[in-house]
């Protein structure tokens, strides 16, 4: 054990474990924190972990995009919205009714255990071919085989921008 | 730029600017009710440097009160002393030799330039530019050197005496002043290139903080603030005193009423002051600087007297109510910034905080003079 721990591979393994912990802790903070701003910070931490996981899944490009989009944009936008919309006393949130906490917890645990057991029970057929995470491949794929996705992304984003503008401005005008 | 924004009063928060805040140049507090970065309402709270000048006057003899005047507005101390000595001289019928009057006018104008230079530097620093402050203070040091050589102090000159002056100027002063006028003309050109025409500054000042002539009337604003709003009012012209009628100078007036207009008024005033100084040096007569027989104790006949002079920031008025005693029965100082600052509350509504502070800078505040 000692030998592997101090080898390069062992270090990588440790880093991966650390990554997992970061992800889970961040996730727990994100869905449990009493203050919304704390929840956003949890989300950021969680997403740093998720980006690390993507990195371990051999696709650094997606990892980078994940940080760029989620931390650089989504998290910032959410914190912005919190500052704009939520006054101080509303920053704290709790469960809607006294029962929703336990019920939510139980159903969540059930869901997780179901999914986990599914994942563990199934025999996954493994292919030897390793994926290619380089920008080039993704770019070529996006513009050839999966160009529909590319088009859809652009349309979705365009609509989102327009929609967001319309909704937010509409609120301001009256 | 500043479209009318519908402010929603129930989303506001209170922002206390001051008493210690880099933009207030001293101890002034503005309680701003903000909606985001927009000012919904502002209430100026002053009195953080109230130094009882008016009460002190009742406890002191007329000459003993002289040092107070230069602490009132330390930036253009000369003009304030000038107002006070004029008021007392007028009431007590003291003759002033012509040379003294000329030297007074020259030093007052030099002091006005140095005051405007401090304003210029501090104003640009408010807007975030640091180097102009250094250049302005460099030029100001030249004035201070000249004045220190004559009066003995750098800031709070106690130079004027009833009927004359503390001491005479020498040739060094005259030579040095001529050199300074030349140097200052060059520097002003540099300031215009560096600051006045700078696109960032123009964007920040044009159309910001509009003050209408009607508003000036309601608040009694004077000086560059009124002149930036198209009011041609300068005590030196409207109500000539001392030897000012002898000089040929212009009163810069701009009609826009925004911060940029006030900025330009002050910059041009510096040029006009240079003209006055030059003419004063040319016309400076020989003769004594103090009247032949100096009154030993000064007593004013009963009654009340009002005198106004144009100080760096506007019309400085002084009202002396005398009951014939050695000290005034009541002395009221009408300070220009007091009225000018009062505008702020009304004018800054709906502005962005950055604009409001630029506007505040353009009013050229000296807080001790406001609080007295």
């Amino acid at each position, binding site marked *: 054990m000692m030998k592997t721990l101090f080898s390069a591979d062992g270090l*990588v393994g440790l880093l991966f474990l650390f990554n997992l912990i970061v992800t889970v802790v961040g996730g727990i903070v994100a869905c449990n924190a009493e203050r919304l701003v704390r929840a956003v910070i949890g989300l950021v931490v969680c997403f740093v972990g998720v980006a690390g996981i993507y990195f371990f899944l051999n696709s*650094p490009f997606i990892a980078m*995009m994940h940080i760029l989009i989620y931390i650089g944009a989504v998290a910032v936008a959410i914190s912005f919205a919190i500052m704009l919309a939520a006054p101080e006393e509303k920053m704290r949130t709790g469960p809607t009714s006294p029962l929703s906490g336990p019920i939510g917890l139980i159903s969540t645990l059930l869901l997780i255990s179901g999914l986990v057991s599914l994942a563990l029970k199934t025999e996954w057929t493994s292919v030897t071919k390793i994926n290619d995470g*380089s920008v080039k491949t993704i770019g070529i794929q996006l513009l050839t085989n999966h160009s529909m996705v590319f088009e859809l992304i652009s349309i979705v984003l365009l609509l989102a921008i327009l929609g967001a503008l319309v909704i937010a401005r509409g609120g301001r005008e009256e | 730029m500043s479209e009318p924004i519908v402010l929603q009063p129930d989303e506001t928060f209170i922002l206390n600017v001051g008493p210690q805040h880099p*933009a207030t140049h001293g101890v002034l507090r503005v309680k701003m009710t903000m909606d985001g970065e927009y000012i919904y309402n502002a209430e100026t709270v002053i009195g953080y440097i109230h130094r009882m000048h008016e009460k002190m006057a009742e406890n002191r003899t007329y000459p003993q009160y002289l040092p107070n005047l230069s602490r009132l507005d330390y930036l253009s101390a000369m003009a304030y002393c000038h107002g006070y000595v004029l008021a007392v001289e007028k009431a007590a019928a003291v003759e002033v030799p012509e040379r003294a009057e000329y030297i007074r006018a020259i030093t007052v104008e030099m002091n006005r330039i140095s005051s405007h230079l401090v304003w210029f530097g501090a104003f640009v620093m408010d807007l975030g530019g*640091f180097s102009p402050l250094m250049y302005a203070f460099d030029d100001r040091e030249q004035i201070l050197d000249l004045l220190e050589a004559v009066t003995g102090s750098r800031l709070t000159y106690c130079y004027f005496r009833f009927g004359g002056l503390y001491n005479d100027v020498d040739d060094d002063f005259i030579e040095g002043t001529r050199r300074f006028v030349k140097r200052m003309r060059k520097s002003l050109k540099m300031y215009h290139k560096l600051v006045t025409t*700078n696109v*960032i500054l123009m964007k920040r000042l044009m159309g910001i903080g509009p003050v209408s002539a009607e508003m000036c009337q309601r608040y009694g604003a004077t000086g560059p603030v009124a002149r930036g709003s198209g009011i041609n009012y300068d005590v030196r012209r409207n109500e000539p005193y001392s030897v000012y009628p002898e000089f040929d100078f212009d009163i810069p007036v701009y009609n826009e009423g925004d911060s940029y207009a006030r900025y330009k008024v002050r910059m041009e005033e510096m040029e006009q002051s240079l003209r006055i100084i030059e003419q004063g040096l040319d016309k400076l007569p020989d003769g004594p600087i103090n009247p032949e027989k100096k009154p030993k104790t000064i007593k004013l006949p009963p009654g009340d007297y009002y005198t106004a002079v144009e100080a760096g920031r506007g019309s400085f008025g002084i009202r002396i109510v005398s009951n014939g005693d050695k000290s005034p029965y009541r002395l009221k100082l009408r300070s220009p910034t007091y009225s000018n600052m009062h505008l702020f509350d009304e004018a800054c509504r709906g502005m962005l905080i*950055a604009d409001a502070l630029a506007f505040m800078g353009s009013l050229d505040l000296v807080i001790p003079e406001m609080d007295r």
Partner: protein
Amino acid sequence: MSLTLINVLAAVIIAIAFVAANAAYLVWAERKGAGFIQRRPGPTENGPWGLLQPPVDGIKLMTKQLLIPGGVDKIIFVIAPVLAMFPSIVSFVTIPFSDTIVAHNINIGLLMIFVFGSMSAMAILMGGWSSRNKYSMISSVRAVSQAVAYEIPMLITAITVVMIAGSLDLMEIVHKQSGGFWHWNIWPFQKGLFNILMPASFLIFFICSLAETNRAPFDLGEAESELVAGYHTEYSSMGFGLFFMGEYANIVIGACLTTILFLGGWDCPFGLFPGVWWFIVKIYILIFTFIWIRWTFPRTTIYSLLNLSWKVLIPISLFNLLLTAGLLKVF
């Protein structure tokens, strides 16, 4: 895979040392430069030419009491300055100083720098929000909206360069510009691509990196005369020190990136010294320009800043992107 990670870790440690030293002496350079512009000597008494000033300041800041004001959100308050410093250190890992001197070159280096650049906005937001100070709050909102607005033209101009080079690899981008002065991306006539908008592109990128690093005239976040000290108003001691150093580290990164993208990296116009010296000369010239600009101009306001970004920089950079794409297709 495993070796890369270790390399990266080692590189991070080196980068920390480099960033810290660089940031500290940039403060000195800034003070000295400001002095020279203002006809005064700047720090002189501590050490020759005041060279001991940064360590002295460092000692003072480190031994100063670390105040955590009451009412702040403690965890976030403590994390924020670290988060401000951390991304700039990581970004250094991938910046190539010459053919050989690079901590770890990854093929998406440019993307990575932008990724970590976007994280500093989060740090400012956290620092400003957790301080429970209205000035900090306003300032952090300002700083973030500014950063978001300027990331767009910056990314678009960077993509223009990426298109010319055909790679996100910083090394590759520099290699594409090799071959002397006239081949740098800043000039319109290189390798069959006559894009006359390239100098404008460079200007846009430079302006954006000024804005990204919250430097004057875009230092709205810490606008002294308006918002006291902005998002770090409540920070004392090293908390403030880290924010301060993070800002200077960001300047170095901005200068490095501009050099790599537009000024040919370590490519030497005359070939007198080895490339790395040229690189350093170039980034320090850019840093000097940063300082020079800071001590010359007044500050803009938030609306004229956003106007500039949305009405001038983004249209021009988009147009340039289209033009470059078209030219690349034609030639």
